[in-house]
């Protein structure tokens, strides 16, 4: 049967359902691969060997007694450490939650369990999902499987690196400003941010509640669609969850046909600051979509130029409020409780010891933006920009079915390159932020290697809210056409570890 870790989730699910491979065998193969390569990648913060093998054995037993298995039953997955899983350490990449074991499952985990998905462990991330490189993890950086001296993207860098290193065929990430799409792009895999409200946030530790959204990582568009379908849907436990049918993403991935679609290239997401190899591969991919029968036009979204500025006011403002829950009283770290210190002193000492530099920076920035006297100029204006960006999207989607752009302005940069320059780091999210602000959906698909550095380039597809199926239709068409040219997926050509 060959190496089980090289197979797609769809193929693994089919082998398990037919009995040609057992879920335990498949899980063990991935655990062995983690043991072999994760020391150099550091995608995982916690590996739940026993829990994974128990879940796999339950799938095998269910098959033996003739229970019908879903398409992902027995398929292993890496879970970003920002989602709760009962009894399993959940740190959010922060020292303030070191050792915390949540007493409940997030809705995403509950749905994964119901689908028979085997959770291998918790994936590394930038602390509280703040960052674009996973260097802000309190537990050390994750490395890019294409080049171990480079970043795997962030904040879901553990999730992207696990899938790219073949230590899991699937992973869950979260995307507040690009934290699924940018890591997918720089690791040469597929990542999708569903429509805001499409996947429940219950049990997702909040960073910026009006922007956070969980979604799938995979090595193929169909695998991402299968995972998307497994975790999506209305949840009464999340008041912002959309009460509507899940868009037909799996059918769209199988359709893989862009004939007759109108595709808009966003004029504002190109030019200065974009690496030439990124622009080259992007332009070729757009050409390819055109040759596959899509009509390609250029569209303008002038307010996208203000998206990053609005994001770095809105997200820190919400974060400064959300992270107030880490008060040293109900869970996590407590520092300086010597019997004499008052509660405010203990809170201040605990938060100083438990939060890293980027989290502190954003809490202070958010506190400032929400202060009396500055609120209108900063937070208020940022909320207006949010309206303008939604209007740009509405106008664009009146002309075209989807929008496309590069996913990130550059390929993976060297570890350490931008740690002292927060603004340079924030530029990584230039293309991905607009979709979070408008609450619509977007995906990154690999489109080749930049000629100058041989590193993966991603193309971003953006679609209207609850039209997630369009992402999969376009993504799968592109993937199929590129695969026909080279005979393999981009990630299959990554250097061996």
């Amino acid at each position: 049967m060959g190496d089980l870790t090289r197979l797609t989730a769809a193929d693994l699910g089919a082998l398990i359902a037919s009995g040609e491979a057992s879920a335990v065998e498949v899980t063990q193969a991935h655990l062995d691969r983690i043991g072999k390569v994760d020391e150099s990648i550091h995608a995982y913060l916690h590996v739940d060997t026993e829990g994974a093998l128990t879940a796999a054995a339950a799938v095998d037993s269910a098959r033996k007694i003739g229970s019908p298995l879903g398409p992902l039953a027995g398929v292993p997955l890496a879970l970003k450490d920002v989602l709760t899983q009962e009894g399993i350490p959940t740190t959010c990449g922060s020292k303030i939650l070191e050792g915390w074991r949540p007493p409940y499952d997030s809705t995403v985990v509950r749905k994964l369990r119901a689908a028979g998905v085997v959770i291998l462990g918790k994936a590394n991330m930038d602390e509280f999902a703040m960052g674009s490189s996973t260097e802000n993890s309190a537990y050390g950086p994750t490395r890019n499987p294409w080049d171990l001296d480079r970043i795997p993207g962030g904040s879901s860098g553990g999730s992207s690196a696990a899938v790219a290193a073949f230590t899991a065929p699937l992973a869950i990430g979260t995307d507040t400003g690009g934290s699924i799409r940018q890591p997918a792009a720089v690791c040469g895999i597929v990542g999708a941010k569903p429509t805001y409200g499409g996947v429940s946030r219950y049990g997702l530790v909040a960073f910026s509640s009006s922007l956070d959204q969980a979604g799938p990582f995979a090595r193929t568009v169909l695998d991402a669609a299968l995972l998307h379908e497994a975790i999506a849907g209305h949840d009464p436990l999340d008041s912002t969850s959309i009460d509507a049918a899940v868009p037909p993403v799996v059918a769209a991935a199988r359709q893989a046909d862009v004939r007759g679609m109108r595709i808009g290239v966003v004029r504002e997401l190109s030019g200065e600051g974009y690496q030439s190899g990124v622009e080259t591969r992007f332009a070729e991919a757009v050409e390819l979509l055109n040759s596959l029968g899509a009509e390609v036009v250029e569209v303008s979204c002038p307010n996208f130029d203000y998206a990053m500025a609005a994001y770095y006011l809105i997200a820190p403002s919400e974060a400064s409020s959300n992270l107030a829950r880490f008060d040293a009283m109900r869970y996590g770290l407590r520092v300086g409780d010597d019997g004499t210190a008052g509660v405010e002193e203990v809170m201040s000492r605990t938060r100083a010891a438990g939060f890293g530099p980027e989290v502190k920076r954003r809490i202070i920035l958010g506190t400032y933006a929400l202060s009396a006297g500055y609120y209108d100029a900063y937070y208020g204006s940022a909320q207006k920009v949010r309206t303008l960006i939604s209007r740009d999207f509405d106008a664009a989607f009146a002309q075209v079915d989807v929008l496309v752009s590069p996913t990130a302005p550059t390929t993976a940069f060297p570890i350490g390159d931008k740690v002292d320059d927060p603004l340079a780091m924030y530029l990584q999210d230039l293309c991905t932020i607009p979709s979070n602000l408008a609450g619509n959906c977007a995906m990154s698909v690999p489109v080749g290697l930049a000629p100058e550095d041989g590193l993966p380039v991603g193309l971003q597809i953006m679609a209207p809210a609850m039209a997630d199926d369009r992402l999969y239709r376009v993504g799968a068409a592109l993937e199929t056409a590129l695969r026909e040219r080279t005979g393999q997926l981009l990630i299959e050509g990554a250097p061996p570890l």
Partner: protein
Amino acid sequence: MAITRDEVAHLARLARLDLDEAELAQMAGQLDAILGAVARVSEVASDDVPPTSHAVPLTNVLREDVVAPCLTPEQALSGAPAAQDGRFRVPRILGEEP
């Protein structure tokens, strides 16, 4: 307008963050640079544009007022740094000496 060390110290107090001198100095410079870059939102935020606080227009999402399963007191206290008599134990909250 430059952000001073004292302003950062005030914000840190509001946010219950015990920052040291080096952090205060570094953060003042970085906040200045970041605010300089994000202040441009005011260029397009004219009076006739309504603000958006949330992308999905939902209002008053309520559930039936019925008892549903929830965490037990033991589960709720399982992650607490300190607990006593089925409650969270906290440091003193008033000004007087213990």
